[in-house]
């Protein structure tokens, strides 16, 4: 059966859900496809060994472990098939809401300089570092829109010197914890400026939903009071409430369909019904690919035809390149006093002092304290390297110090490498027979230099905050992608070095858009989700205006 729509959106994550909401509220007929299911709070559960943050034996938000492989190529060139819960898979959740269903929800804007990285620093050899075709000023109104439409808690004035804004956040910042007090004192001693961490969390009732009850399960889990704001509980319900949006779950887009002239006419997809895959075809005036940086690139590459033998938008072999996420330097310190009070989300205080302006460093990053860490996560992640891994000494450290360890970590701006890349592996197929994504390459060595600099800042912060012992984790030269995956269909003015124009429209296609982290030319020294959301509002408004003559707000 063939259905017809104004727009088809592939993916319901941070970007896809927003585009669906904007277009459906503009009165347009929207088909919204999601490969995973809609998950309830209890379906996501609270399994400490199988969640989006620690996935030793599986995930709580998809995809299923069997039938969804990828191929990972290590630095020595050895390729192997990986399953979704293995680190080299670079997974993001596969369910309605995508990663926003289970994210920690840090809601950072990028800084003005993050859009002008090549102009600010020059381009190091071997890197594809570039300026965005748009500025912070172009995105600023849409940051504000995302903050107010979804609900962000934060302290605008505290950040105004590094991240300018016209309007404050709609919700007050999360309150301090004992560790906040210690870290604030340390920062003051060092002369560093700090601010509360902005979060897509209802610190007061907002958007018709309740406020946060300060439980211990933010990052990696679902919110018990629905106070964590993702696309699944904000823009997608709004889209569905209009009656204009049809959401199909368990729907795998296998191709963007083009006609004999190469024009995009729709999407073919498979829906799992009673264990069998049923083929469907949908036509639309506009197709929007919002499947995340790995899967969006995979879909464009898999949509090759005789007219587009390399895949759609890939005349210049740019689709899939510049895959970026973040290296995450982490530092830990032991305090004499307890700094843990069990009140979530746990992340409270950040410094943006070192995002730019670091001598000899390209970029840098934000540093903050951490979400509450389940004990097994702490055991794997946070123990001093010289502590025995077993026996009484280990048990007693867990007993005495779980509540006394201060955590500082942060995402370091990735210096992109064109060889960090998503391609298609024709030899490995998923359960529907579709060739899978193949991940290869690594970030640029300059990213590791910046990460090492940030690790040292983290240690310094902990020492100044009163830690008796400090230890840390040294980042290596690896592929960065994961939940912060971005960059694979970067926007730009030159079709030879980019995949889309500044609105996310794929070069040489009139009606094909990519709207998700794939567009990011660079990925900031921040959690990228608010930028993904802001660009989604911006592209959605452009699509509504240009294709449907709607001036939506």
């Amino acid at each position: 059966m063939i259905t017809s729509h104004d727009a088809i959106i592939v993916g319901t994550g941070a970007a896809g859900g927003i585009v669906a909401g904007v277009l459906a509220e503009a009165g347009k007929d929207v088909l919204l496809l999601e490969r995973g299911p809609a998950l309830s709070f209890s379906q996501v559960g609270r399994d400490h060994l199988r969640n989006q943050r620690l996935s030793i034996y599986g995930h709580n938000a998809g995809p299923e472990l069997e039938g969804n492989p990828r191929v990972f190529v290590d630095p020595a060139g050895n390729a192997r098939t990986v399953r979704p819960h293995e680190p080299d898979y670079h997974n993001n959740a596969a369910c309605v809401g995508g990663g926003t269903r289970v994210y920690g929800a840090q809601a950072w804007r990028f800084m003005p300089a993050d859009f002008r990285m090549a102009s600010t620093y020059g381009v190091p050899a071997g890197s594809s570092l570039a300026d965005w075709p748009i500025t912070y000023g172009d995105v600023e109104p849409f940051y504000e829109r995302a903050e107010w439409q979804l609900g962000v808690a934060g302290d605008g004035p505290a950040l105004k010197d590094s991240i300018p804004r016209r309007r404050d956040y709609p919700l007050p910042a999360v309150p301090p914890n004992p560790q906040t007090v210690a870290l604030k004192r340390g920062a003051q001693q060092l002369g560093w400026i700090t601010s509360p961490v902005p979060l897509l969390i209802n610190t007061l009732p907002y958007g018709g939903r309740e406020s946060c009850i300060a439980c211990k399960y933010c990052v990696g889990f679902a919110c018990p009071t629905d106070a964590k704001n993702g696309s699944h509980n904000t823009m997608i319900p709004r889209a569905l409430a209009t009656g204009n949006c049809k959401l199909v779950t368990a729907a795998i887009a296998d191709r963007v369909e083009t006609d004999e002239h190469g024009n995009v006419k729709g999407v073919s997809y498979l829906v799992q019904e009673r264990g069998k895959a049923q083929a469907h075809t949908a036509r639309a005036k506009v197709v929007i690919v919002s499947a995340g940086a790995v899967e969006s690139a995979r879909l464009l590459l898999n949509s090759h035809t005789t007219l587009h033998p390399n895949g759609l938008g890939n005349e210049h072999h740019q689709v899939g390149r510049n895959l970026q996420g973040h290296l995450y330097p982490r530092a830990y310190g032991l305090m004499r006093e307890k700094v843990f009070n069990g009140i979530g989300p746990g992340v409270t205080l950040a410094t943006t002092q070192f995002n730019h302006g670091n001598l000899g460093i390209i970029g840098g990053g934000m540093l903050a304290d951490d979400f509450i860490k389940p004990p097994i996560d702490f055991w794997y992640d946070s123990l001093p390297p010289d502590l025995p891994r077993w026996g009484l000494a280990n048990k007693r450290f867990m007993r005495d110090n779980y509540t006394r360890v201060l955590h500082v970590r942060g995402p370091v701006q990735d210096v992109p490498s064109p060889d960090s890349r998503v391609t298609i592996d024709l030899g490995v197929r998923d359960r529907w027979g579709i060739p899978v994504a193949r991940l290869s390459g690594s970030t640029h060595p300059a990213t590791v230099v910046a990460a090492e600099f940030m690790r040292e800042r983290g240690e310094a912060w902990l020492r100044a905050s009163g830690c008796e012992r400090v230890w840390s984790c040294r980042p290596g030269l690896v592929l960065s992608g994961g939940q912060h995956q971005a960059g694979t269909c970067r926007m730009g003015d030159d079709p030879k070095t980019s995949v889309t124009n500044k609105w996310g429209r794929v070069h040489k296609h009139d009606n094909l858009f990519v709207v998700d982290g794939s567009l990011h030319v660079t990925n900031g020294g921040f959690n990228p989700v608010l930028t993904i959301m802001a660009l989604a509002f911006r592209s959605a408004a452009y699509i509504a205006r240009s294709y449907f003559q709607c001036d939506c707000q």
Partner: protein
Amino acid sequence: MRLTEEQQHTLRAAVDRIIPPDDYPGAWQCGVGDYLARQFESDLRPMLDDYCAGLSALEAESVARFQQTFVLLSEEEQDTMLRHIEAGEVLTAWNVTPRLFFNLLVNTTAEGFYSNPEQGGNRKGVSWAMTGFEEPLQ
């Protein structure tokens, strides 16, 4: 394939050296054996052969080094045994890499002990109360 009775005894003694009892119960009393029994039927099924081979090798190693079965060694001797295996220093022929087995033993014991009580290895939420993550369960 399941653990033999001898392997089961060795496992019990070994996990109690990984997380020994002190003023809080040790791994076995908290149910890590139950946790592992469930995992051997599911997630750890692909590793079960290695796990069993490691437990048998640990026992053979104990006899070779101390002329005594592992469960009857003193705690100090058991720890000495485990430290040798951790370092990859073995006297007998192993069908599994000693360090691989040791990491598996340590990680799976901690996973059971520190994860959710309903998974079997953290009875009454003992480890969550011990660390301060949660108030003790009633």
